[in-house]
């Protein structure tokens, strides 16, 4: 079980800016007015990218049955790609009555026997937490039996939302893996990437650049991750949080325990990518590295600008509205600005205090931060002559009705928008949306109806 103190601590992360103002930290979800995933999903998001470990979900079928193979978290691991496989004890009514410990233990044995993973993560869920299965004991025994890490992750969905679940995932890694193995070698330029999940290969857009500067990715949590590497994470010189506030608890504790400083960066768009690389170099406190980095950024930006010329000419004078959640409310806005689009408004109804601050910073003084985007965006589209709406599927009709282009930014994306190269992918998608006649045609009035 997670100790009461730990849960309280995770709820009230002191490094979250909202907790400076509010008494309670993460709020409880409202019945009948809640969207978004649970703590289990958050833990799954943060840990499933470890492709060399089996992720065994101890619960009934909804938890995994609906969610396996849903994320394009790319890996370079050879052999089984466990991020794209699903393992679950599929709790039955018998387990609910008699307890699921034995089945869980057998299931761990099965996974190790058939798939030889480098570790097993075991996730408790609502039902198995409620019936009191002792996953800590089962995991401890199994780890001794198989001589590999078997990590209990206490992630019943009723504990909270996705962010909270990601913290729980980080907590499990910190308690059971970090510091349990020494790296073969270390360098003064070793960093950990925290909260980068390598969705669609985002991470690979910028890691070659870091490596070319001599910066070494010692470990990740958990994009293209290896369990063996995160076990050595305590020897890194810097923790880099990538677009993920939820793991700030993890990096704060790493700082307290191992004295590793941390910075928070984003790799969406040109300016953010450059800033991120420079911040990493600066935090590593090596003047020569900083100089090299500045040169690299200059040449990469020049290369990118040359490729963007054509797009920028097309985007000149075009206006966009962005309606999405979390860090995307500013990170995509920044990327769009890099392409030469004017971002008229962005939504902040699902953003944290930090995200709102950032959004204000990027969009400037006249920024419109939408609290009720559903109501605001149709008005804004008309008032500002907006050309394109980037939002979730629900807003499609708003775009069609106003005969403007639409990009579904919440859809599971298939290609990366990360780093310098990813910006070209975004440019390509936005340009094609703007050129596509479909938005005017699909929203047209039927011949038997009178135009209103």
């Amino acid at each position, binding site marked *: 079980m997670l100790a009461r103190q730990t*849960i309280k601590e995770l709820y009230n992360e002191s490094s979250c800016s909202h907790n400076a103002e509010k008494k309670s930290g993460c709020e409880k979800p409202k019945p009948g007015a809640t969207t978004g995933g649970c703590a289990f999903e958050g833990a799954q998001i943060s840990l499933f990218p470890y492709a060399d470990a089996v992720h065994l979900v101890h619960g009934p079928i909804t938890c995994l049955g609906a969610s*396996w193979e849903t994320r394009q978290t790319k890996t370079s691991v050879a052999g089984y790609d466990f991020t794209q496989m*699903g393992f679950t004890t599929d709790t039955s009514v018998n387990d609910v009555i008699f307890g699921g410990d034995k089945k869980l233990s057998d299931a761990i044995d099965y996974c190790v026997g058939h798939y030889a993973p480098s570790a097993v993560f075991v996730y408790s869920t609502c039902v198995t937490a409620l019936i009191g299965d002792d996953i800590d004991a089962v995991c401890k025994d199994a780890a001794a039996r198989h001589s590999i890490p078997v990590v209990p992750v206490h992630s019943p*969905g009723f504990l909270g939302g996705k962010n909270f679940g990601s913290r729980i995932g980080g907590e499990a890694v910190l308690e059971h893996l970090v510091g349990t193995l020494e790296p073969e070698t270390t360098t003064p330029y070793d960093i950990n990437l925290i909260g980068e999940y390598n969705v669609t290969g985002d991470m690979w857009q910028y890691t070659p650049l870091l490596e070319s500067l001599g910066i070494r990715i010692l470990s990740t949590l958990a994009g293209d991750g290896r369990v063996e590497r995160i076990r050595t994470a305590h020897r890194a010189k810097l923790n880099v949080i990538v677009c993920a506030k939820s793991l700030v608890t993890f990096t704060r504790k790493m700082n307290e325990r191992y004295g590793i400083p941390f910075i928070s960066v984003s790799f969406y768009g040109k300016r953010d990518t450059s800033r991120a690389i420079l911040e990493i170099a600066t935090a590593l406190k090596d003047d020569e590295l900083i100089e090299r980095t500045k040169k690299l950024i200059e040449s990469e930006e020049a290369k990118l600008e040359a490729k963007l010329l054509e797009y920028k000419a097309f985007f000149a004078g075009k206006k966009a509205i962005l309606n999405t959640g979390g860090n995307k409310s500013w990170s995509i806005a920044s990327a769009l600005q890099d392409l030469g689009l004017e971002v008229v408004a962005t939504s902040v109804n699902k953003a944290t205090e930090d995200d709102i601050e950032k959004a204000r910073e990027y969009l400037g003084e006249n920024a419109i931060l939408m609290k009720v985007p559903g109501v605001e965006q149709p008005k804004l589209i008309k008032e500002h002559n907006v050309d394109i709406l980037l939002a979730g599927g629900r807003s499609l009709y708003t775009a069609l009705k106003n005969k403007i282009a639409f990009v579904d930014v919440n859809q599971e994306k298939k290609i990366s928008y990360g780093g310098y190269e990813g910006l070209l992918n975004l440019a390509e998608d936005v340009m094609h949306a703007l050129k596509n006649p479909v938005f005017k045609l699909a929203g047209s009035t039927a011949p038997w109806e009178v135009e209103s």
Partner: protein
Amino acid sequence: MSAKPLQVNPIKLSQPMGATLAFLGVKECMPLMHGAQGCASFTKVFYTRHFHDPIAIQTTAVNDITAVFDGGDVGIVTAVENITKKVTPKLIGLFSTGLTETKGDDLRGAASKLTLPVVWVNTPDYEGGFESGWALSVEAMITQLVKPSSTIDSAKIAVLPHSTMKPIEVERLKEFIEGFGFTAVALPDLSTSLDGFLGEKQGQLSAGGVEVQDIMELASSMAVIAVGGSMAKAAGLLAQKNPLMKTVTVESIGGLGATDTLAKALCDLGGRPSEKIKRWRARLQDAMLDTHFILGKAKVVVAGEPDWLVGVCSALHEVGATVSVALSSVTSPVLQNVKADQTIVGDLEDVQRFVEECDMIIGNCHFERVAKKYHKSLIVRGFPDWESVGSQLFDDCLYEGGCGFLFNAANTLESHRAHG
């Protein structure tokens, strides 16, 4: 039944997910899942990606405190209050999850405290699966909504589609029944809610489906037709509402034989087929002959929900194809009727060796990786299908859809043979 202590790459889906889909086939309904927020969130994302349309669903968002201190009624009543601040559903479809069944919440009691029309149903995800969750919800709607009747409308037929019938297939089934001179009401009716159409108010409530009023008046039907063994109980419950109502259960509507059985039943009820239906039967006969050269030599692995398996395997069997293994997500009495060399209840791992030796796979999109690995042709069917667009409009049933299904299977196989 596999004796493994776990599922590896499961095709099984849960009862609450089946219940969600059933309630989405009722017009202006709000499916309300009584559980932690993740159950509803996973389900919403799952269907949004499958149908490429916004999905209406809400959750009672049970948290660590209410999990212990609330018997369910506070969470449920609060949820409905919050829902009605934004929309006014014509029906709340209230169903449970493993969490709230484990703690023993009283759905009936909570439902009685609501002022809106509500249907409640117990659907723990540690029992049954997708198909039973759908069927239990239909049974609950019939028991709790339909008004008893002692008179019948001699033209009206109630039809109860099984869980894996696609929206277009429900529409074609209704048209088929109408082609025999009847009117048809489907419960649930996905053909007007998740058929993929451009509507104005997207996703606040279910966008279409059978009207609540029409469900209430279902007992005046002269007959009820259950499609699939899982729907037989629901048909029986409906027939109990009117002693004059006749009951028909067909095990599937896949292929010539199964469609003939349905057609015969409709004739027995006093109907006569339209010229169009007769023409489509002749076309299917021809399609069977055209495709049997290709499909007659094929070894196929088929995976999905029990009632759906019966139909697909029967259609393949009719043209001489060998289903080397039919993989079912859950156990069911109908599995003994599946035309396959072997029928097993299990997961993707269990059929791996059959996949290696087959020519074609028919199953959900989780098979894409397997098909690619072993260079097999694949027809994606069932839930989930996150990769195809338009799956809601692919018709595989009855005479007309049967032609399409056979042509599609034969062309897929042949193109794979020729080009790999």
